[in-house]
């Protein structure tokens, strides 16, 4: 494609020499955004590191009140969704529209499944009064400091909440990509929107890969459940 002229492809913006250069620029742009995301989530991980190392026992007890089976299920759901996303990129490279659409639909389905499970978990926290705001908070577990446990749940809700927001945005992006794919916008030569959106999706998966062990598995050895 090195000698493609700006007018040869509808997907090529006028300020790029060719599709290859455009794809590289788009990919770097997404990576730049993802680096700001690393710093964004990094700040919250920093808070987690400091408070967990300050109150390790309280954090372990607090964590044992999360259902690691639901968290683990969601981890698997997200990894599967990353696989279907990667396969969507593959089929867009191959120009296989049917399987591209199938993989995008599956990715959205798994993303939605994740959010439903997350909703079930949040509801359980609401019912058991483990939401760290005013009257929504009621902590009776002995041998633990309510304030320190509350700090764990602040971090839990902040991090999983922001992560869930990223999932919702990801679903929106995937809906647009699906719509574009359905309208034959992608060819083996031009499919960078699929690939660049995939980068975002995989990044959100990576955040959860860290959140799962750091939030859900601290108290596993306490055999609370």
């Amino acid at each position, binding site marked *: *494609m090195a000698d493609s002229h700006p007018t040869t492809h509808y997907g090529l913006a006028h300020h790029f020499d060719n*599709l*290859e250069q455009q*794809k*590289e620029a788009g*990919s*770097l742009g997404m*990576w*730049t955004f*993802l*680096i700001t995301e*690393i*710093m964004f989530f*990094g*700040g919250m*991980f*920093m808070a987690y*590191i*400091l408070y*967990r*190392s*300050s*109150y*390790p*026992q309280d954090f372990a007890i607090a964590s044992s009140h999360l259902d*690691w089976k639901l968290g*683990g299920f969601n*981890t*698997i759901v997200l*990894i*599967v969704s*990353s*696989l279907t*996303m*990667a*396969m969507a990129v*593959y089929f867009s*490279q*191959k120009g296989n529209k049917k399987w591209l659409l199938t993989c995008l639909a599956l990715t959205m389905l798994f993303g939605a499944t994740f959010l439903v499970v997350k909703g079930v978990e949040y509801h359980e926290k609401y019912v058991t009064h483990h939401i760290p705001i005013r009257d929504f908070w009621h902590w009776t577990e002995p041998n633990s400091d309510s304030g320190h446990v509350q700090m764990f749940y602040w971090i839990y809700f902040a991090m999983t909440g922001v992560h869930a927001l990223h999932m919702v945005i990801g679903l929106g992006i995937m809906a647009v990509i699906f719509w574009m794919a359905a309208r034959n916008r992608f060819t083996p*030569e031009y499919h960078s929107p699929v*690939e660049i959106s*995939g*980068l975002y999706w*995989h*990044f959100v*998966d*990576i955040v959860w*890969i*860290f959140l*799962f*062990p*750091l939030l859900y*598995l*601290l108290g*596993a*050895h306490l055999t609370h459940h």
Partner: protein
Amino acid sequence: MSEHVVSPKIYVSVFLALMFFTILTVVAAYFDLGRANVLIALVIACIKATLVVLFFMHVRWSSTLTKVFVVAGLFWLVIMVALTLTDYLTRPSSPILRGP
């Protein structure tokens, strides 16, 4: 176009590796290893993240410039964590120093 098409075989292999490490991290959490628990959890999570970045996100086949961007992002993260900890770990009143 010099684009690299990654075969589904590689994607599935990476997927299976990710599943394996997910199970491993759950199993490891059931043993009370003290401070080693968090270390194991983080090492496994870093391996998983590396697999996703290299293969699912195609960085293994990306341009050098993209690789520099990725490493730069991680570099700034390390600066933030390391410099913050040099403060907290050296405060005489630090609960981190006092231990559990």
